């Protein structure tokens, strides 16, 4: 079984680490450090998250990136050899969408591979719907999905879609 490297990226607080913890079948490697900025949570990823998942006969290696732009060197390191990208964004923080687009452009310039978009925190008041996020990012709507990264059945959906895209790409 050929392992597939998938990069999970997006702005801070989108749920990247949560998604990997929800889905990984092996012990997750995380690198949480105490957050000193007001980012709405006590810790943040400073290097990477790593987990694995078997899906449709493939072994996926999920590599989560830090969300802050000061860690852009990790985006570059983790993009190496990636076969697909899951970009995660918060529906209730549309102001982070330009950052999301920067991250996507940055990683795609190093690893021009298929990507899908996962929209989280849709249960909050005043959110952008996945259609609006897709429009902003210029992503086909069918590659953009709302999800709760704490629920396995929802967290896995964008990865299923991504596998289809990687398959048709290959």
């Amino acid at each position: 079984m050929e392992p597939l490297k998938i990069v999970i990226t997006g702005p801070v607080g989108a749920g990247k680490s949560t998604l990997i913890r929800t889905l990984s079948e092996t012990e997750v490697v995380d690198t949480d450090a105490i957050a000193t900025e007001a980012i709405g949570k006590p810790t943040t990823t400073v290097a990477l998250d790593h987990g694995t998942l078997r899906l449709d006969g493939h072994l996926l290696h999920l590599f989560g990136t830090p969300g802050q732009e000061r860690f852009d060197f990790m985006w570059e390191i983790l993009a190496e050899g990636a076969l697909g990208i899951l970009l995660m964004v918060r529906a209730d923080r549309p102001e982070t969408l330009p950052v999301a687009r920067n991250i996507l452009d940055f990683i795609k310039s190093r690893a021009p591979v298929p990507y899908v978009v996962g929209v989280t925190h849709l249960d909050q008041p005043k959110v952008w719907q996945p259609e609006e996020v897709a429009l902003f990012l210029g992503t086909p709507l069918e590659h953009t999905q709302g999800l709760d990264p704490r629920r396995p059945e929802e967290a896995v959906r964008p990865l299923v879609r991504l596998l289809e895209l990687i398959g048709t790409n290959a």
Partner: protein
Amino acid sequence: MSKQEQLQQLLGELKAALPELKEIIVASSDGLPVAQLGESEIATRLAAMAATAHGLGKRIATTTHLGNLVEIVIRGDQAYFIAYAIGDKGILGLTTPAGSNLGLVRLEAQEYARKLAGIL
């Protein structure tokens, strides 16, 4: 004296004790620059990288049963980058040329990491 002045004073003392040090930075645990002595243009980047190296080092230490992480050493053929935790809130990072007395650098840097922990 403000917290910033106290940090800056300690970095100055460390530099006086080890004049060969080139970069000295204090980063927050999540990679923001807190104080620095040296080239300002790389300090911000080095702060983020120090947090990454330290965060990953901690994970490697636990995964491979090394016990608690004591220090990060990155050795180039011309210089070293060395980092120590400042309590759980920050990291002290420094660069020193290849010919430095590493034993002395380690002793002094760890001593100053302890002093800095009292201020951060």
